[in-house]
Structures are given as C-alpha cells and as structure tokens.
C-alpha cells in the first residue's frame, strides 16, 4: 500500500510539473505578454514602451530561467534601477528583497498578482476558503439527494418509480450550470422573488439562505443526475446477487434487505464517482461564481485568465490540478479500502 501511494504521489508531482510548465508556456506567449503589459501601462502605449516594460520587469529573460525562478530552484535577482543603481521592487505592492534569493513555489512564495495588486497568497487563499463553503453546501445537498434517488430507482428495477427517476436524472445531466442557473434565476428570483439572483453579498455579509441557495442549487443539479445514475446501476447489480435472494428467502422484509444487505455494497461504486466529481465541480464553480458574482476561486481564475495575471493564473492552475489529482488518489485508496475484493499491489 505504501509503495502504491508513494508511486502515485511521484506521478502526481511529475504531472504537476508538466502541467505548470505548459501553463507557464501558454501565459508567456508573445500576445499574452503584450496583453499583460498593456493592462499594466495603458491602451495607447507604443511598442517601444511595451518592450521596455517587459525587459525592465524581467519578462524577457530565458524561459527556463524564469520557470526555475517561479519554481524556486533558480535565484531571483533584485530589480536594479539603472539610474540610481538601487534595488527597487518590480511591483510597488509586493515586497522584494534587495539581494538575490530563492523565492518560488518550493519556498511557499506564490508570487505577485498584477491584477489585484497584492500577493497571490493574499488573494488565492481567501478565495479558496469562500469556494470551500460553496463546495461544502453543494456536497451536503447533492450527495444525499442523489444517493436517495439512485437507491429508490435501483431497488426495484423497471418499476414506474425507476423509470420516472431515471428520466429525471437524465434531464438533470442535460442541464449545465449556465442553463439551470438562468432558469432558476428566472423562476425563483424574477417571478417568485423568493431568492436573491446574486451572491455578491455573501462575501461581505456572510451566507444566508436568501443569497446562497441559488448558486448551491444550480451547481448541485448538474451533478445529481450523474451520481444518481451510477448509484442506480450499482444498486440494480447488487439486488440481483445471490445473498439478496437468500435474505429474501429467509423471510426478511424488503426494507430491511435493502437497508441492511444491499445498501452497504451498493455504495462502493458511487463513492468513486462522487470523488471524481470534483474536477467537474471545478468547472461548475467557475460558471456559477461568474454568474452569481461570488468572489471565490472560480471568480479569481476568470479574472486572472482575462487579464493574463501570470503568477495568479499559475497559482490557480496549481491548486486546481492538485485538487483533481488528490481526489483521484483518495478515490483509488478509498475504493480499495471499501471493497475487500480489490487489493492494490
């Protein structure tokens, strides 16, 4: 088991390294650098100004040197003003030591956000905390509802309940967040006026039922159908097993067979599916947070990508890739743990 986990962690590190290299390459393409410098200077800057800004802030150094600096394996040189010969920080809002230093991800330094004019860590971690709250509520509603639907549909295959619930769960998988968000806003905010169509106040004034229900509902709906279908399939398979028949023939009631014998075995497969939902939820987070103006991770990612905020975008991609890979690892370990028939070599 330990070798399995350590091998997986090794692959994870390699994947993260490759992915950040790709992201680093993409954000440092010439058009993107131009976009960044224009957003930092102003719209009417000449080509010479842009070039000078890029050289001054070290964007014209060798690609691998800069990647190494970001990573923290190559020393960052202080930015020396040629006129005075003194070291000045590249961006006034981020402190920088005056002597060469290692300051990268490995040292826990995420860099400097050019869009929000602060350290990346100051922006990224509060945003992650905000998204964590959203995720928590989404999971807290989505998982029980979808498991319930799946179990109800799967315990009597082919019954009317099964058909109705199956079609309903197919319908929810056909409504991505930007569709259900619009429909729910129209119904609950515009027509009925029960809920707030914006979650912007949730950041400052705290979560309330009034401002937070719509985002949670919108995100949960898309996931419910998929988990419910997987649970149903797993339940259907379990219900055809010999031990279920034995339990029935012993004279146990149907409900006790379902609860005591079927449920535990039927919930192994959905566990994996729920863990693997996280990558999907990440995309959902971006859509929902943009739609309902909630200042979380997704909102930060969109802002960073829209303005080519290099360090922030790299931080965002590092975090999201970490979440995706971590959930994959947990789902694999958990699956082996839950299912005694599977043993990891």
């Amino acid at each position, binding site marked *: 088991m330990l070798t399995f986990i350590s091998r997986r962690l090794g692959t994870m590190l390699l994947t993260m390294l490759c992915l950040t290299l790709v992201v680093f390459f993409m954000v440092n393409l010439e*058009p993107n650098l131009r976009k960044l410098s224009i957003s930092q200077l102003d719209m009417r800057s000449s080509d010479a100004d842009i070039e000078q800004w890029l050289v001054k802030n070290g964007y014209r150094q060798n690609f691998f040197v800069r990647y190494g600096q970001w990573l923290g394996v190559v020393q960052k040189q202080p930015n020396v003003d040629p006129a005075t010969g003194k070291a000045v920080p590249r961006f006034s809002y981020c402190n920088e030591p005056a002597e060469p230093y290692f300051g990268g991800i490995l040292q826990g330094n995420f860099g400097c956000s050019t869009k929000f004019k602060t350290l990346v860590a100051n922006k990224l971690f509060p945003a992650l905390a905000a998204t964590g709250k959203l995720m928590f509520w989404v999971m807290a509603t989505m998982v029980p509802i979808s498991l319930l639907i799946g179990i109800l549909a799967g315990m009597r295959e082919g019954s009317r309940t099964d058909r109705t619930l199956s*079609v309903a769960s197919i319908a929810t998988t056909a409504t991505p967040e930007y569709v259900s968000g619009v429909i729910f806003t129209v119904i609950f905010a515009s027509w009925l006026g029960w809920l707030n169509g914006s979650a912007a106040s949730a950041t400052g004034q705290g979560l309330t039922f009034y401002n937070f229900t719509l985002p949670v509902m919108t995100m949960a709906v898309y996931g419910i159908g998929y988990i419910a279908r997987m649970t149903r399939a797993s339940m259907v398979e379990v219900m055809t097993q010999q031990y279920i028949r034995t339990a029935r023939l012993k004279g146990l009631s149907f409900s006790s067979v379902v609860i005591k014998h079927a449920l535990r075995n039927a919930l192994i497969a959905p566990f994996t599916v729920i863990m693997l939902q996280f990558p999907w939820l990440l995309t959902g987070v971006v859509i929902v947070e943009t739609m309902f103006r909630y200042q979380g991770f997704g909102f930060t990612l969109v802002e960073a990508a829209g303005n080519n905020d290099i360090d922030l975008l790299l931080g965002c991609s590092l975090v999201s890739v970490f979440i995706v890979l971590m959930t994959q690892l947990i789902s694999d370990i958990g699956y082996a743990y839950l299912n005694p028939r599977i043993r990891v070599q």
Partner: protein
Amino acid sequence: MGIEYIGVFQIIVGVIGRFWPVWLALAIVLGISFFYKKKLGLYGQLFDSGVGIAGVSICFFWLFTAIFASTIAPFDPLGQVPVMKDALPGAIEPGTQNIYFFGGDKLARDVFSRMVFGSKIVLIIAPAATAFALMVGITLGLPAGYYGGRIDSILSFLANLVLAFPVILLFYLLVTPGIMDTPIPYGLAGLFFLFPIIFFLTLFYTRFKNRPDRLYVLLGLTILLGGWVYIGLVFDADPLGIVSIAPNQLNIFVAVVFASSPGVFRIVRGLVMDIKTRDYVAAAQTRGETPWYIMLWEILPNARGPLIVDACLRIGYTTILLGTLGYFGLGLAPESPDWGTAIKDASRLLRSFIHPALPPTIALMSFVLGLNLLADALREQSMKD
C-alpha cells in the same frame, strides 16, 4: 408609434407554423423508420421504447431545424430593427409585418431567428468535433490497450495530463484571441486532422493488403479526399475554395477535440484490454494476422456498442462545452447567434428582461436531453443482445 402584439395562443400557433419544414421532414423520416424498423438493425430497435422514440425525435428535430434554418427563421439573426429593442414576445415588426415570436434582445434582434440559426452552429461543430475526438481517441487507444507496456504508460500519462486540467482553464489558455497570432492552434489542428487520414489508411491497408486492385483505389481515395479536407481546414488553402473554416472556429474546434479525446482514449483503452482476452482474438493471432489487423478488424467492431453510446453522450457533452465557451465569450464572435453566447448576453440582463434568456437555454437543454435519451435507449438495446 406603438408596437402591436399578438396573443399567447397565436404565438404558439405561429411558432409551430414556422417549423413546418421540420414537421414535414420529421414525419417522413420517422414514418419510414417506423415502417421498416425490423430491417434497420440497432437503429430500428430504438423505436421499441418510448425513451428511444423521444430521443430520436428530439435529435432529428434539431437536425432538420439546422438544415432548414433559413426557411424557418423569419429574420436575419444579425439584423437589427431599432424599434424592436427589448420588444416583448409576439411583437409585430412594423416594416414587414412579420412577428418577433419570442421578442427582441437588447440589440433589437429577433430571439426566435437567433435560436434557429444557433442550432446550425452547434450542430456543425459539436458532431464534427466529437467525430475527430473519436478518431484521435481510437487511433491512440487501440495500441495502448493492445500492446500495453511502455506505449500504454506514455499515452496514459499524456491523457491523464490533459484530463487533470480543469476544462475551463484549458479553454482560457487555448481559446484566447491572442493565440491566433501564434502557430499553436494550427499545429494542433495539423496534428489532430492527421489522425482520421492515418486511421483510414491503416484500416484499408490491413484489410486489403493482398488485394491490390481494391487497395490502391481505396488508399488513393482516402489520400485525395483526406488531403483535400486537410489542406482546406488546416492551411485554409483549398484549391477549389469549398472547404474553409474561420480561424476562430478552427480554434474552438481544436480546443474541443483536445479536451474530449483523452476521454475517448480511456474508454477505448479499457474496452480493448477487455476484448483482447477473447478467443477470437487468440484465433486471429494464431492465424498470424498483424496486430493492426486484429485491432481494427477484430477488436474495434466488437467494441462498437459502448462506443456508439459514448459518442451520443459525448456530442451532448461537446454541446455543453461549446455553450461554456460561448458563455465566457471565448472564441465565438460576440454577435454570433449560438446558444451559449445568447445565454451569456441574456443572463446579464435577467433583472430587466427574461424573455431573451429562455429560448436558447431551452434549446440547448432539449438537444442535450435528446442525445442523452438516445444514448440511454441505445444502451438498453445493446444490453438486450
């Protein structure tokens, strides 16, 4: 000057009336299919279940809507009639006496016509991108599953690399306007569009290796047709000027193929690993068939069931991805009538007007629902066999 309106009942009748070519085509196709369903194999079996009929009808509905878009839509999807700005559903346009069935949007364009024309964009890009993703996934998944070992490790690592990317981040990196100045989209397009050609060349070569008369004709045709489309799409240099694609559409196309082919790869790889242990594969190996013959002519046909189901689901998923791109204003032109862009425009103004938001959302939802129902019915049918 006031704008006159028609009632709700007249709107419903009017909309149903505008779709007349669709109803006609739908009646003909479904009638024929239903009549000959015994002879139509898997497709015919779909008509045995309610879910199947619903799925097929919805998919054909949008297919015919896309085909007859210019007949159905009363207005130009980009045309603006200033008086009709934010007009409510059922407003009569004073100039032509035509009706804005679902009202006008904030730029005074007809919401109904935009929805109809939007289907055209979605129904061209989504299935085509899915087809390319399938080609890439199959061509790489077959050897990975069949040979295993190092090829498998490398290809799986690459697939997991792409899958570990959150889709939205991938799109923000791949589909920005600036990236069209770099050779990246063209390079990726050149790589992806090569796969169908390689696939068909190998397919024909392995089968007709000993029958030169058929082989050369098929190989020649593949190279000719494939090369023609390839030159047209990647270099935009079709000598006949028929095949061409706007640069931003190429970019979207590439991004969508890039995002969805690893999924296909994983499915194909899994299927191949399962099927290669069967007896008929061992028999073919004993006969001394080449590995690629076994992969393409023994394993692939036996993996078709799950692949067809997956393709249906994947077209739906690609439609959702396209909508996501539109929603974030990536790639597609800002005035483009596709559903995602329309949803984005309308959702910003939900507080004041809700009518421009509903037609594109319902259109997108119903099309994806149709595909999902179709996939579900296909899965049921293939399980019966």
